[in-house]
């Protein structure tokens, strides 16, 4: 098949790295790469050429490709430039932006949305959300570290002792866990909170403390008044988190609710109560942010607190982000491209969930 790799317009990553190009060619595909696609992630056109890819102009990609790949969807008008039978693979985020569906339908193409791949075990190797979130979590800590006017680790020196910084991670999903791990490595004191039940153990499995109302488990064991207590418990928990935020030097938030605005975890008032110099990294900025002060893709200072709203941090680690992304896509392609032939099997959960438009027919149901 003719596979076309588009250059991102507003992202440092590239969806397919040269190593993967080689693998695709080995499977009887022709791979076209837009000029300079990998420039910003340090994969030069030469490298693509060496791997067997053809460096072409953007227009050629639209004209010739049977399969098109990008990380972020191209502009709507470019979608219509694609071949009628083309398969376009990217993250459409239909749950956030359902206006794109008719556009795709009109173009008559098949749209495969990476973010719709179900999070089941076998699909883990295609899960771009995980691999990108992991990078974001890691980078969030480094970023917090560079903006923090303090050391992370404890240091006992001839000029007095530096206490370790306190880091609070809200939302212990993929990004949150990676942030916990990275912050712990740097020697910070790390606490975390998440609403998921399993999160407590997961947090502790990284050696961090889980923020918990004392006696919570006793309450649970008591049974009976489950609902009532849960409400009370939740309130206590909220208060507790507010307290912990006030005491933290860095707060990294990652709480996302799929298809919804991110929950507000840090109110303006809480920010005011934080110590001067503190840093908030809001990885949920893309979905409205977990902090009321967050501005998407901006770093703002409020009352001596730095709030970092750069949500797509994975793009700032473009080399490895692209490498992981590329591997994810390769694994994904293997599901429906065999020996250079398309074989979309809608019985497979992966296909049926992630193919949001099939030959112009909208399959996605919100």
């Amino acid at each position: 098949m003719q596979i076309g790799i588009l250059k991102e317009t507003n992202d440092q990553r590239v969806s397919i790295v040269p190593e993967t190009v080689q693998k695709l060619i080995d499977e009887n595909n022709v791979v076209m790469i837009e000029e300079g696609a990998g420039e910003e992630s340090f994969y030069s056109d030469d490298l693509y050429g060496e791997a067997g890819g053809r460096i072409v102009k953007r227009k050629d990609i639209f004209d010739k490709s049977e399969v098109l790949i990008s990380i972020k969807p191209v502009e709507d008008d470019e979608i219509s430039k694609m071949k009628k039978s083309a398969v376009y693979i990217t993250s459409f985020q239909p749950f956030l932006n359902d206006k794109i569906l008719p556009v795709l339908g009109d173009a008559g193409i098949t749209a495969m949305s990476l973010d719709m791949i179900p999070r089941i075990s076998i699909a883990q190797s295609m899960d771009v959300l995980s691999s990108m979130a992991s990078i974001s979590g890691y980078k969030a800590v480094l970023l917090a570290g560079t903006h923090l006017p303090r050391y992370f680790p404890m240091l006992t020196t001839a000029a007095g002792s530096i206490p370790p910084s306190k880091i609070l991670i809200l939302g212990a999903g993929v990004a949150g866990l990676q942030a916990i791990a990275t912050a712990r490595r740097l020697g910070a004191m790390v606490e975390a909170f998440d609403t998921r039940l399993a999160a407590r153990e997961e947090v502790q499995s990284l050696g961090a403390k889980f923020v918990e109302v004392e006696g919570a488990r006793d309450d649970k064991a008591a049974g009976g008044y489950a609902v009532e207590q849960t409400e009370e418990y939740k309130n206590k928990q909220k208060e507790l988190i507010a307290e912990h935020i006030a005491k933290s030097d860095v707060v990294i938030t990652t709480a996302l609710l799929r298809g919804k605005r991110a929950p507000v975890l840090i109110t303006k008032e809480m920010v005011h109560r934080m110590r001067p110099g503190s840093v908030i990294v809001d990885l949920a900025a893309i979905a409205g942010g977990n902090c009321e002060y967050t501005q998407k893709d901006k770093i703002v200072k409020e009352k001596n607190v730095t709030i970092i709203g750069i949500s797509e941090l994975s793009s700032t680690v473009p080399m490895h982000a692209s490498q992981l992304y590329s591997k994810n896509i390769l694994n994904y392609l293997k599901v429906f491209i065999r020996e250079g032939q398309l074989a979309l099997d809608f019985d497979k959960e992966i296909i049926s969930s992630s193919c949001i438009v099939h030959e112009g027919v909208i399959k996605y149901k919100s």
Partner: protein
Amino acid sequence: MERPILDFLYLVSIVFFIVGLRGLSHPESARRGNLLAAAGMILAIIITLFYPFGNTPNNYGWIAGGILVGTVIGSVAAIKVKMTKMPEMVSIFNGFGGACTMLIAITEFRTLPPGTELLSGQVFTVIFSVFIGSVAFSGSLVAYGKLDGFLRDSIRLPFPQIVNGVLLLVIIFFGGYIMMMDELNYTIVLILLGLSIIYGITFVMPIGGGDMPVVISLLNSFTGIGAAAAGLIYGNQVMIVGGILVGASGTFLTILMCEAMNRSLINVIIGGLGATTFTGGDDKDKVVKEASHGDTAILLKYSQKVLIVPGYGLAVAQAQHACHELESMLEKEGVQVRYGIHPVAGRMPGHMNVLLAEADVPYDKLLEMEEANKELPTTDVVLVIGANDVVNPAAKTDTGSPIYGMPIIDVEMAKNVIIMKRSMRTGYAGIDNPLFYGDKTKMLFGDAKDSLNKLKSEISNA
């Protein structure tokens, strides 16, 4: 040669026995210990063959014949037996030893000169030998039968405790009765013999599966005591001391074995009598074999190549440091240890890397899944620490499984698999793991950190 010298040589063979048994209790010296004990035995036999009794008929032909027959049978059996059938073998061998005691004792009773003072140590010794030899004999055969499976575990006596208790009392009274009688009565001893044989059967019969090794060890100490008793008949030091050594160490070993199972000896026997511990499993394919820390430690220490497969449980237990320590200890013992890192082990990408880096495990010890799978066929032991889904063979075979198609670290290719986890609970994917019931698999239950620490101390002691 003169008697004193031979008596002295007997002493030498006793020393061989002692040193041999001592050697047998340490892994490094176990083989040597066994050979020493065997040498002691040969010495003792040779001495006995030439011990000057005066003008005895000797009958060397019969002796040679007996030894030949026994040696051939014994060695063929020992060579042919499968490693998995060893306990059966030991049990039946032990029964033969008991039988020998029984035969000697009964013959000696028969040859007691008429008019022998019956209420004497001598007669008591003979009667006791008959009893203990017979019990060891029949009990061992029953144990053999049960282990081998041709005696069904489910054969039960009604009220076994009572039957056994009554039987034992009857035997004691019977013995007392014989000694109180005015004259030797050979027939009545044959009845005692019969009763003893029956007691051996009813004693062992109700004891079930997992407790068998304990019983065999106990019967073994009976045989030892029997040999000592027979020694008393002849006033032969080597039999007495050798038998007592076996009796004492056998009893002590029995207690140690019970301890290793976290049970008391009484509990095993009474429990056996009450048949409470026996839980028959009809689901024969699904047998979980538990490993002990000691076994695992030795297994690891004497391997060439070990692969550790860490999973989420390692993280939960925060056992990374202990794990690294174990690895270093093994490396010092000359074992090659590496880690097989599954891409989705843990709960976040790179979870295992974070852990192992924290414990300062060098990067070059980490194998990726594909490399690990390549190494597995030549790996002696795989130590799965708190991993579950990532080693679940259902991913390869069970199309209905939610993890079907996920590549796994295929630990079953290795020679031995030890799985450390706390229970039989499932992992993240919530599915059962057929690996746990595998032929090569043993489970080492408990918190990973605790288990690792125990392993460490076992290895340093072993």
